[in-house]
């Protein structure tokens, strides 16, 4: 290999070859982008899917029940058929505006890639997410072997063929923790309990039923780990009940001997690249702030999947990423049209390569009962070369468990007048399952004319 830095030019560069990246790339090609390249740091595509050997994938997207690897295979085939190129074993280290032109520049490295400077008209951020760790929870005690995040344990078990331990406590009732409770039970381990600091489960209801209830594994709500014991290897954890403010209640401590503690305490969108590129992030989601085309504040950079906000179902990741891929393709075409002068005849069009919206966007805000909202902005008018989309899906997470309730999008005008744009009724709604409401036609037109839009839930909250 030569010791020089390589240069390449593409229309759309997709960072990450997981479900979001594969769908974004495939749909960028389908929308007409000529050169679409996925840069993947692992030696295979699929992201986290290859280690998710359980079923439950694809019910929405393909109308059939698939395992993680099967779901990844379908998208890998679709990407290949669409003419997507994939660069494996290559990690993107930086992203920013291209100093040599109006597009974007990525720097990436790999054992066979060497150092690559990738020039792209549009970029899709599809880096996925990482797991919260013990440090983030600040659990005191010793620092022994035997403490893993649930996803790391899943990789060890399903891809490396290694058994994390035999007597297991799981802290956090996120989906991966629930799946691993069942998986390790099937491998002969004893899962002593799943502990959840909140008064409700974090994962999907179907996972609580199928992974815990069906195997008789206790779920202890409003309970956490307050101490780790064991100097070399984990020997036990001390648990405690917590009050309404999640503070341990003195006197409720219980010592549980165990050799393994798995943590399934939340996922954090992976955005070191975005942060370094100066792209504003939403503190509530941990992902980039985007508009309805999923474009970030850095023109030409789009975000989707778990890098944008953490999803519960991969099917919805694929759907969202398809929109990001399509937007990226349209942007790349607008850039090349502008460069070739096709739009120069139109005096209204910006001369810059990257088209920008004509006025300040409409802000979507979390109202009562809502924790996160994506997208955070709506465009008011079309930009050069980029028509407005005619349908917008607003995805959001509620802040508590609700019984019968109404989900609502409300337009708020400059003088404070409120007009309901969309509603949906639910018999029950939980923070562990993402909600969405659609906008199209007159409602979407009204939304684009509003000062801001409030996303809210109204009903009986159960804590």
């Amino acid at each position: 290999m030569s010791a020089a830095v390589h240069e390449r030019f593409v229309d759309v560069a997709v960072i990450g070859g997981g479900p979001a990246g594969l769908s974004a790339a495939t749909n960028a090609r389908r929308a007409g982008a000529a050169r679409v390249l996925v840069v993947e740091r692992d030696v295979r595509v699929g992201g986290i899917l290859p280690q998710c050997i359980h079923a439950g994938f694809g019910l929405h997207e393909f109308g059939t029940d698939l395992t993680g690897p099967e779901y990844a295979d379908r998208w890998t085939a679709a990407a290949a058929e669409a003419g997507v190129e994939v660069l494996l074993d290559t990690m993107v280290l930086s992203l920013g505006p291209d100093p040599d032109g109006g597009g974007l520049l990525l720097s990436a490295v790999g054992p066979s890639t060497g150092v690559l400077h990738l020039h792209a008209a549009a970029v899709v951020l599809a880096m996925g997410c990482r797991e919260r760790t013990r440090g983030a929870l600040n659990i005191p005690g010793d620092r022994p072997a035997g403490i893993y995040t649930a996803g790391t344990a899943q990789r060890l078990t399903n891809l490396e063929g290694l058994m994390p331990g035999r007597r297991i406590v799981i802290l956090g009732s996120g989906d991966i923790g629930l799946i691993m409770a069942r998986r390790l039970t099937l491998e002969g381990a004893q899962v002593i309990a799943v502990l959840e600091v909140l008064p409700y489960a974090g994962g999907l209801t179907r996972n609580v039923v199928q992974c815990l209830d069906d195997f008789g594994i206790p779920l202890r709500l409003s309970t956490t780990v307050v101490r780790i014991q064991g100097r070399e290897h984990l020997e036990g954890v001390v648990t405690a009940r917590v009050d309404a403010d999640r503070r341990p209640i003195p006197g409720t401590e219980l010592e549980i001997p165990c050799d393994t503690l798995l943590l399934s305490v939340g996922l954090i969108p992976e955005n070191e690249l975005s942060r370094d590129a100066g792209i504003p992030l939403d503190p509530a989601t941990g992902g980039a702030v985007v508009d309805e085309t999923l474009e970030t504040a850095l023109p030409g950079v789009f975000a989707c999947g778990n890098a944008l906000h953490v999803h519960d179902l991969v099917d919805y990741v694929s759907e969202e990423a398809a929109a990001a891929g399509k937007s990226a393709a349209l942007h790349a075409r607008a850039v090349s049209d502008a460069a070739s002068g096709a739009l120069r005849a139109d005096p209204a069009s910006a001369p810059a390569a990257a088209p920008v919206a004509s006025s300040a966007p409409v802000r979507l805000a979390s109202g009562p009962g809502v924790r996160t909202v994506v997208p955070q902005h709506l465009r008011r008018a079309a930009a050069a070369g980029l028509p407005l989309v005619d349908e917008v899906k607003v995805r959001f997470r509620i802040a508590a468990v609700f019984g019968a309730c109404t989900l609502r999008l409300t337009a708020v005008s400059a003088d404070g007048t409120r007009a309901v744009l969309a509603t949906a009724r639910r018999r029950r709604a939980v923070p562990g399952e993402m909600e969405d409401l659609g906008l199209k036609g007159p409602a979407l037109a009204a939304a684009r004319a509003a000062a801001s839009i409030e996303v809210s839930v109204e009903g009986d909250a159960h804590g």
Partner: protein
Amino acid sequence: MNPFDVLIVGGGIIGAVTARALSEYDLSLGILEKASDVGTGSTKGNSAIVHAGFDPVTGTLKARLNRIGNETLEPLCRALHVPFRRNGSLVVAFTPQDRLELERLLDRGRQNGIPKLALLDADALHALEPALAPNAVAALHAPTGGIFGPYELTVACAEVAVANGARLLTDCRVVGIRPDPAGEPAPDGARFTVTARTHARDGSLVEETYRARFVLDAAGVFADDVAALAGDARLSIRPRKGEYLLLDKRQGTLVSHTVFQAPGPMGKGVLVSPTVDGNLLIGPTAVDQDDKEDTATTAEGLAYVLAQARRSVPALDTSAVLTSFAGLRAVSSGHDFVLEESPVVKGLVLAAGIESPGLVSSPAIADRLVAVLADAGLPLVRRADVRMDRDEPVRFRELDDAARARLIARDPCYGHVLCRCERVTEGEVVDAIRRPAGARDLDAVKRRTRAGMGRCQSGFCLPRVLEVLSRELAAEEETLTKKGPGSSLVDGRIR
């Protein structure tokens, strides 16, 4: 087996820096370390501060060796490619009482011969460190204060010593030191028979014996126990626990100086400091205890550190905590370093009571120990064939793209990023394993390369580092450990 001229008990910073210094001479050297790697005791659980030297009581060994070490540590770190930064330190006063304390420290610092000390008023202080609490009224500024990598220095010195022929024996806990009768050298020239307990391949404990002319007791919090094994029961070391929190690099530029609080009736206060790796470190607590191996953190301790650190820097983001840890200081009853040949046991040289400012003093301590050994009769003949520095380890994250391209062209392993958070490549992990005194477990790789020290705390790189360790050591993954015997990472294979 031929006896060792010097057998060093303890592979912490003192043992390692002294081993390197001794390896310049024609001597047979051994280091007995109870853990699976060097630098895993007090060396890794501390503030990593290059103290300026205004704090120790004037006239003590601490005061003198701190001043010397503050000058000699920097060139040593440079020669060994160990991170070192003279970022300066501030002792901050919040009350008129605190201010008096600063004046006392300034006075003592001048008596100790510490250069460039100055008192800053509130305006100068806030101009220097805008994130400091508005109620900070003054500070003692010590520009010669700094930060460095204590376990990196320990690893580097062990590496040089081993490359120069020293034998590093890890997983060897000394359980007996028998001076020969009457203290006269035996026919083989040795005075001591040292027994150490180690793990056999099957995991059982076995005892090995070594012969030595001199024993250097550099056993940290265990220095009194080791001396007592040899027959010198005069020492008393009491461990004092210090708990710390390490914060994300996003918080690493909150302050540029090491910020201490003026000592008061409530203790020495808590420091807020950048680290050489760009994180933010806050701590420690100070709690005396009896257990010499209890380094567990506590809910009370961590809460105290957070509250105190926010007193100095209110903007501190407590949600940015990466991890917490605790270390033990080796507090001696005499409150000064003990660096001497035992007056009771001839040939036993003591390096005891090495608490703060032991890290910064370590090069000066090593020089003094070499002199003590020479006075005690150890012949020092310089060798021509030794090398006192080492090749610079690759730090991929610090290279520019052109340098990266050249490196990957030479060895593609340097193009494989194993640790995404700290951007550590496979090539760096392989190198950490293959170097003298190389890594044998996950934590040893982490200390040498930073793989696993970032935001995901090894969630991503752990399976990948295991794979490289397994390949390089020709060991099955299920036999690999986090930090030596008893800390296996997995419990066998799936079916």
